């Protein structure tokens, strides 16, 4: 603190820096990069990112769209969490005892009247069941749709919300905002968790995550299809069950059925195996406990998007389908889905595809582009996106790759010609930037003319004399020219 010309004190720079570091350490702002923009659908809307700190929300970021609106929650402002959408979304994940403690403290500190606790509890329970919260702001005639953000330990660290004039939030707008805000919160949570997984050891992290959530992947699958139903007021035990994220076991116990029956009833594909009275009981129990398809919670439980983006020059090139199939078979086995983009080896299309994959959430990339000097691959690796190259390498050797032994292949082909006595072969280089550089003259490929001449020195010398008068090379050139002039030309070497 610095002494202010005799009248008191003002904040010193180290204190401000410390505050900045504390905010930065949560990684919340970084995890939200690019997401707030997408939440704003109309000029009058804006999006907020709030961090929950001791019962208060601190606004970390705000996107005001194209039209400045008279809202007062500027970045850095603190507000009692129970009065804001972001704050209530985060509070809905705490036990109500803690909520009450926070509310009491905030009200005492700011000498404001306490809210109606019953009303607040009902609102938080609904928010918890729905995975989002539509509420009137403490600002006059403003409304927001908020969803909670979780960190790797399963704690709600804040909320994200689009907000705007209350009049524009019709039922249709609320429904659409609901899915985009739960998606956004899920993505931010996934990024936060990925970020912490970078420095924590993943297995321990996962265990912690799953223990805190009290849920297993199987439960998530089962619960994914349940539409949230509005239940009546819940007792404190139900609230507690909801707070620690009800498991399949909780649902089965409440419905008085076996866990396997509950699982069948909750899974749409096996639901027909359960009789209707039983199904009704299980669904009611699931709704009562808030065992619903909350996207941010689901993302939290699986911790990662569990998807891989595959970048291919052109899937119609017949070499790629078997590669894709092989990759997908393994990925499916390991719980990942596979997304494919054709890039035509165009850097712009490649960049757009990567961005599209990242915005929807992928854990990593497999790339099969055919260029040797590939800035995109280097950028991706530089930005820390897990990447494996398939059927190709680039200059940077620290990027993992899976390739065939092309050099040996060329050696085999030349040896075959030598055996047949046709070693007067004509080869050419299809494209200088390509690998495999399938040419006997490429010094790097190991299948140099020397290799062939070692096998049969005379054979290579006769090759140097050239082929017969009709000339293989000219035929080859003409075919290359024709191919590249066709509208859909495949990369000459893949």
């Amino acid at each position, binding site marked *: 603190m610095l002494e202010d010309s005799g009248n008191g004190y003002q904040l010193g720079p180290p204190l401000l820096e410390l505050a900045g570091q504390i905010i930065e350490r949560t990684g919340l702002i970084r995890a939200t990069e690019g997401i707030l923009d997408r939440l704003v659908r109309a000029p009058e809307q804006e999006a907020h990112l709030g961090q929950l700190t001791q019962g208060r929300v601190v606004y970390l970021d705000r996107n005001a769209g194209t039209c400045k609106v008279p809202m007062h929650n500027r970045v850095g402002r603190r507000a009692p969490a129970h009065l804001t959408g972001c704050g209530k979304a985060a509070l809905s994940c705490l036990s109500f005892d803690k909520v009450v403690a926070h509310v009491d403290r905030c009200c005492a500190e700011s000498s404001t009247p306490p809210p109606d606790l019953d009303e607040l509890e009902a609102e938080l329970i609904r928010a918890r069941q729905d995975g989002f919260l539509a509420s009137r702001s403490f600002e006059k005639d403003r409304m927001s749709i908020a969803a909670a953000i979780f960190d790797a330990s399963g704690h709600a660290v804040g909320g994200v919300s689009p907000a705007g004039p209350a009049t524009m939030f019709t039922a249709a707008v609320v429904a659409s905002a609901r899915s985009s805000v739960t998606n956004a919160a899920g993505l931010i949570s996934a990024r936060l968790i990925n970020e912490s997984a970078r420095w924590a050891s993943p297995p321990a992290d996962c265990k912690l995550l799953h223990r805190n959530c009290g849920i297993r992947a199987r439960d998530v699958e089962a619960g994914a299809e349940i539409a949230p139903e509005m239940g009546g007021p819940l007792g404190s035990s139900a609230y507690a069950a909801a707070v620690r994220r009800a498991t399949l076991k909780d649902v089965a116990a409440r419905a008085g059925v076996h866990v396997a029956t509950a699982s069948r009833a909750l899974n749409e594909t096996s639901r027909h195996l359960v009789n209707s009275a039983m199904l009704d009981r299980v669904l009611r129990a699931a709704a009562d406990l808030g065992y619903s398809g909350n996207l941010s919670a689901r993302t939290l439980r699986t911790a990662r998007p569990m998807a891989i983006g595959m970048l291919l020059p052109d899937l119609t090139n017949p070499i790629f389908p078997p590669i894709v199939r092989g990759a997908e*078979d393994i990925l499916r086995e390991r719980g990942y889905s596979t997304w494919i983009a054709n890039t035509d080896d165009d850097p712009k299309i490649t960049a757009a595809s990567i961005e599209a994959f990242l915005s929807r959430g992928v854990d*990593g990339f497999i790339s099969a582009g055919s260029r040797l000097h590939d800035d995109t691959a280097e950028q991706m690796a530089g930005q820390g996106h897990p990447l494996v190259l398939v059927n190709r390498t680039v200059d940077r050797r620290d990027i993992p790759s899976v390739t065939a*032994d092309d050099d040996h292949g060329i050696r085999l082909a030349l040896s075959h010609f030598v055996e047949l006595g046709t070693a007067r072969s004509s080869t050419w280089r299809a494209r200088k930037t390509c690998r495999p550089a399938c040419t006997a003259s490429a010094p790097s490929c190991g299948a140099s003319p020397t290799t062939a001449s070692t096998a049969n020195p005379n054979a290579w010398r006769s090759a140097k004399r050239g082929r017969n008068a009709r000339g293989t090379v000219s035929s*080859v050139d003409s075919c290359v020219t024709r191919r590249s002039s066709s509208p859909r030309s495949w990369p*000459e070497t893949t």
Partner: protein
Amino acid sequence: MAGNDLIALGCYDALREHGMTCPHDVSIIGFNDTPFMDHVSPPMTTIRIPQYDLGREAAKLLVDNLENPEQGPRSIVLPVELVNRRSTAPLRAN
């Protein structure tokens, strides 16, 4: 010897246009052994790369990297083989 099987197929066409036949006048070896190269005429002699396994190994490598980020970058080279079909023949005595 062509950079891949599709180029080799282009060579088939070019030879035909010039009134030549493969492998009577020119022997051709493709590369990759893409699907159906055993059904073209003549069935293509080519270098087989294990395409399906390339995909499998790439996916394994990526998932292993994701699940054990501390391990360093690792690259894999898979073996290839010559598939001797009908597009190559001994040199004619002329």
